[in-house]
């Protein structure tokens, strides 16, 4: 008994071990949740990734590195860079979408933040409202809007962006319009939160010290907003990496992304669950890595 350290918690005397037990009780449900819905499925995914496709989509549980080789591009048709191209293309679209969301989202967040509390709540709600409609339906709406007989296409033709017979849909432009409109709410929300918390005193101080507008923005505003920017990048980049509905519908399904490739393994003609698992792991690892890299770079530049 003597070695028990007495602590004060919530105004009561208690011991460390008792506090530890209490803490475990409180965090237990959360940890159980993570164990059941995150850790176990991930372990299962890793195990499956090293199994093989049996005939007719069954799973042959003998250890093999076949999926890894397949991932690197070795198929029945010899070596091809196809899988690497697919991963690269997915990243390209995800990164461009994220940048576009930031470029559109930042001014929007400031604009919303500039209004009174009541108006800004309303404006924020308006940003979120489209998310209440199903993604596929919104994408179909874009298909119609960007079609050949619609004003956006006339306008683009008038300005010479596209040829006389072409239309905005299907095409790269339509894909990005769809992607950005889908992800924008997720980008704006964290940005708005950090705009709201901005300490304008720092901006004033920077002005007083004769910093130009660019330096003031960089050191006075952007550095303060970094947590919000990181959060908004995370919330846009990660989901966009795995997304494929929008690019399929608005891009004419000419090219596939990693999301398509995974879907094809599980529900498509391939019925190759082990290879799908391998691709899933690639997606998880690459999004985690890109986030870590981004946080490192972002953190260094703005302190």
């Amino acid at each position, binding site marked *: 008994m003597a070695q028990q350290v007495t602590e004060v918690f919530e105004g009561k005397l208690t011991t460390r071990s008792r506090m530890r037990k209490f803490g475990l009780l409180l965090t237990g449900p959360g940890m159980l949740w993570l164990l059941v819905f995150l850790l176990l499925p991930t372990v299962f995914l890793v195990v499956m990734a090293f199994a093989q496709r049996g005939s*007719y989509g069954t799973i042959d549980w003998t250890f093999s590195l076949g999926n890894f080789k397949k991932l690197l591009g070795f198929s*029945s048709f010899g070596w091809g860079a*196809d899988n690497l191209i697919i991963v690269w293309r997915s990243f390209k679209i995800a990164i461009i979408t994220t940048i576009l969301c930031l470029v559109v989202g930042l001014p929007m967040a400031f604009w919303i933040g500039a209004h009174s509390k009541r108006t800004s709540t309303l404006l924020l709600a308006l940003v979120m409202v489209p998310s209440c409609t199903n993604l596929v339906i919104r994408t179909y709406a874009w298909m119609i809007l960007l079609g050949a007989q619609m004003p956006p296409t006339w306008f683009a033709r008038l300005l010479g962006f596209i040829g006389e017979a072409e239309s905005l849909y*299907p095409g790269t432009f339509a894909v990005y319009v769809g992607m950005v409109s889908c992800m924008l709410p997720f980008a704006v929300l964290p940005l708005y939160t950090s705009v709201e918390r901005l300490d304008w005193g720092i901006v004033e101080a920077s002005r007083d010290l004769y910093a130009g507008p660019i330096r003031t923005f960089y050191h006075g505003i952007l550095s303060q907003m970094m947590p919000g920017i990181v959060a908004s990048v995370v919330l846009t980049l990660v989901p966009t990496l795995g997304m494929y509905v929008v690019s399929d519908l608005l891009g004419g399904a000419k090219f596939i992304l990693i999301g398509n490739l995974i879907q094809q393994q599980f*529900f498509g003609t391939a019925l190759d669950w082990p290879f799908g698992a391998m691709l899933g792991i690639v997606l998880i690892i690459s999004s985690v890595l890109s986030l870590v890299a981004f946080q490192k770079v972002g953190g260094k530049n703005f302190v």
Partner: protein
Amino acid sequence: MKKILLAALSLLAAFAFTACNEQKQEQAPKTVTVMIYSEYIDPAMLDDFEKKTGYKLQLELYEAQEEMIGKLQAAGTSQYDVVIASDVVIQQMVHLGLIAPIDTAKVPNRVNIAPQFMGQAYDPTNTYTIPYLWGTTGILFHGAKVNPDSVSYSMLFDATKTKGNFSLLEESRSMLSMALQALGFDANSVKQEEINKAVELILKAKKDKNFLGFDGSVGGKDKVLSKMDWAAIVFNGEAQAAIDEDSTLQFVIPMEGSFMWVDAMTLSSKAPNVEGAYAFMNYILDAKIGAQLAKYINYATPNKASLEVIDDEFKNNRVINPNEQEIKRMVFLADPGDAAKLFDEAWTIVKTR
């Protein structure tokens, strides 16, 4: 403390028991659950079926064969009684144990099935399938009417002959088999070098500036109707729907051939209501119901008794009911077995480069 625990336990047991009971009661008004393509049955048949057989008809919809098999594997076959499946996946479903043999004695109307659906590669012993509807695949296009027996795949695959935007079929096996036929190979070829040539043919078409993308049959039809596409590969049912709206459109089976397909009723391997499943199969095979279904969906019926009660206009429509010459150049797609892997890898290349 013990008393409380005991009380809690008995309460829990009581709950569990009533929950079980409730579940049983819910199943009491017998339903027949049919897994089926969306918009693939006349809605009027839901009430009619209940009136005639006493079973409630419940539809579970899917959009693609692959999705249907994925659902059966993930959710289990005990959720469904009848599964409507395409000919190409029947052997796979048998192999995976998703469907069970049909007790043919329980489906007396089976005598109505036309002979060309018996003993085909998708079900050589006729034990797993009862045909539901069947159809063909061809090219739907705008422009002056041409002799339907003179149209070649080159109108899509030869960049000098494409007269406007076109879409290809977003279905790996089907599209590759058509490309194989365009090259003069067997649609059911599993030879790697031939599939490789088919891949190259599609990749060449992808580079055509008129190529708009890959689309399902419905999407292709919509694009042709809205004049976004000049031509698209569609199933005959969609082609007929388009021609009904715009009579200047034409649908042809290319002279190099294409594939016909049949969607069949199969019995889920753990069907909770087997008797109901047979009742549904028998109901669909009824002469009048078969005719009503074919006319509503605009697909051909495999029911020879239905053909006798159907009107001549529908029967003589070449889009729905191809003539003998056209049937001769079409094949059913056989189960590729382990070559499915080849088709998948080929398709990944098609969709990447």
